[in-house]
């Protein structure tokens, strides 16, 4: 946004960015050149060379592994046709997983943010509630929360509605909500640690220029806290992806759930049946968490500010 101000005619606002060489005699650089430079810069920021190299190595490794797997299949080490037939099922499960993730991550982040913020507030009530929330949800295994939320939700809804299908569907979503509240407790701790990591001098400075408490929180504390806690949040998001597999245990047909559906046919092939099945399921999750981790890394690169390095885990 500050770039726009550069074009103002005041001599004070001389160009300050390093964007491309200034044309001779003060002429602006050709437009395509600056666009190209901007694009190059952006690409460079998202994919610095070392990272690019790592990505290439990882892709080559995946490629090689796939080739070896295929070769083994063709040699009859395992049943390639079976491995192929379950793939479409898993892909449809992948869509359902995406639905669950799309509910759980925003819900967990929203609630977690509020609880974490509340835990740094001056109100004893908010802090106490936050502490109890975090203690409870961090102590309970997620499957217990998911299972009982969906079971009790389903039983409760049976009183309210005579439509068993509706009750069942809502029961399923209750399980996902329970998972969201569980991850919220972890995210609350991350948010709290991030807020507390902002040195006291920063809020002193906002005080001294007359910003209000809310302004100080949103303009200074949270932007810094966000950068510091980004890696931890990325970790937590990938935990969420893995935890959505638990939803299969209450009847979601997501990736693991569709795997369960193929379990009976797979037993036909002896040990290799379930082996192929679960390895393929695991590969789906591995790719999902890998993509998420890469996205978070890129976000870290883009939002990196000198002097605000994220805490390494």
């Amino acid at each position, binding site marked *: 946004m500050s770039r726009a101000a550069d074009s103002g005619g005041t001599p004070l606002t001389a160009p300050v960015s390093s964007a491309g060489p200034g044309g001779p005699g003060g002429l602006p650089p050709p437009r395509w050149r600056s666009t190209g430079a901007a694009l190059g810069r952006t690409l460079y920021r998202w994919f610095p060379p070392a990272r690019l190299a790592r990505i290439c190595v990882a892709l080559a490794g995946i490629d090689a592994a796939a080739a070896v797997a295929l070769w083994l299949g063709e040699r009859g080490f395992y049943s390639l046709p079976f491995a192929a037939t379950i793939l479409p099922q898993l892909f449809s499960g992948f869509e359902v997983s995406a639905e669950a993730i799309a509910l759980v991550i925003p819900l967990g982040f929203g609630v977690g943010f509020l609880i974490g913020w509340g835990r740094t507030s001056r109100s004893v009530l908010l*802090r106490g509630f936050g502490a109890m929330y975090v203690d409870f949800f961090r*102590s309970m295994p997620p499957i217990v929360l998911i299972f009982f939320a969906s079971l009790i939700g389903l039983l409760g809804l049976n009183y309210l509605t005579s439509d068993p299908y509706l009750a069942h569907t809502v029961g399923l979503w209750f399980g996902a909500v329970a998972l969201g509240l569980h991850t919220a407790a972890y995210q609350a701790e991350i948010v709290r640690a991030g807020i*507390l990591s902002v040195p006291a001098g920063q809020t002193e400075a906002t005080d001294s220029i007359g910003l209000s408490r809310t302004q100080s929180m949103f303009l200074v504390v949270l932007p810094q806290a966000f950068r510091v806690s980004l890696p931890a949040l990325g970790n937590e998001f990938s935990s969420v992806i893995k935890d959505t597999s638990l939803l299969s245990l209450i009847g979601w047909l997501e990736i693991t759930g569709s795997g369960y559906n193929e379990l009976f046919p797979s037993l036909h092939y002896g040990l290799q049946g379930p082996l192929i099945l679960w390895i393929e399921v695991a590969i789906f999750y591995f790719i999902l968490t890998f993509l998420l981790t890469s996205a978070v890394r890129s976000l870290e690169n883009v939002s990196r500010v000198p002097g605000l390095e994220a805490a390494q885990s």
Partner: protein
Amino acid sequence: MTATVQPPLPDDLDRSVPPAPPDGPRAPGRIRTAFEGPGRPWILGAATLAGGAAAFFLMGAIGLFNIPFILRELPQGLGPAETSLGLTMLAFAFGFFLAQPLAIVRAFGPARWSRTVTATSPLGLKGRAANVLVRAAYGVATGYVAIIRGTPALVQILLVYYVFLFTEPTLVLFGESSAFWAGLVALTINTTGYQAEALRGGFQSVDRTQVDAGRSLGMSTVQIFGRVTLPQGLRLVTLPLANEWISTFKTSTLLSYITILELFGWARSSVAYYLGRPLEAFVILTIFYLAINITVSRSITYIEKRRRIPGLGSLAPELPLRPARRAA
């Protein structure tokens, strides 16, 4: 002198000024933390316990669940709880030992190894062969950790379970069935990956100057690791490892889905389904898990704080230390 200019209208929200605590103008920044400081966790623990008990009896009193039933069934859960705890502790202990080499290789992988070790090779390996070996070990360790951390524990458990089911369906060892051993193996495989990562963090965050100091005294690489890096690193990872224990304990609930009758499996099958009391089953489980996990985390935090060596920090996410504000 009297006020001659009318100040702008007050804003009720932002005017409140907190009372100054005795130890300084204000607590760090404007943000104070709940229940931090020596002895405070116990206050919070007592308050939580009292609040929980009050909520428990209140909800019982309004008929949400049946308190006598819960009190009657609670002792029945001790056996399954023992299974849960036993599996967790065994898996955690095995994992701890298996994780050491992984963590060492990951922490002092190819880059550092080649720089520091070629001069004084601890394993009697020198030059290129050692380098290739270390690189291979690093790749294997990294791949293992990535796979374990990148896939759900449930899928890992199912995979191991079906391998056992097909290869050793009738195995009985120490009076335990095949499923039990499958669960133990799966849990160990899982926690090894996570513990390796926690330990690596600890080893790597031991200050490099400490290693340099050791080397300047003429200690060998192995000596430096054993006498400097390991003791400091283990101290640094106390809290992360405690978190990992709790995490393993929570993961052990999934073993109920491979026919092991642990705490959750018992509550689900016999209390929720057989006796038809899902709410009570949930309350019983809550009591068990809160009691165990909060006790463990509070005790470890307490011990870690008591035994902390000044100047040697902790890796756990906790209140960052800030310089005390000068009083004048």
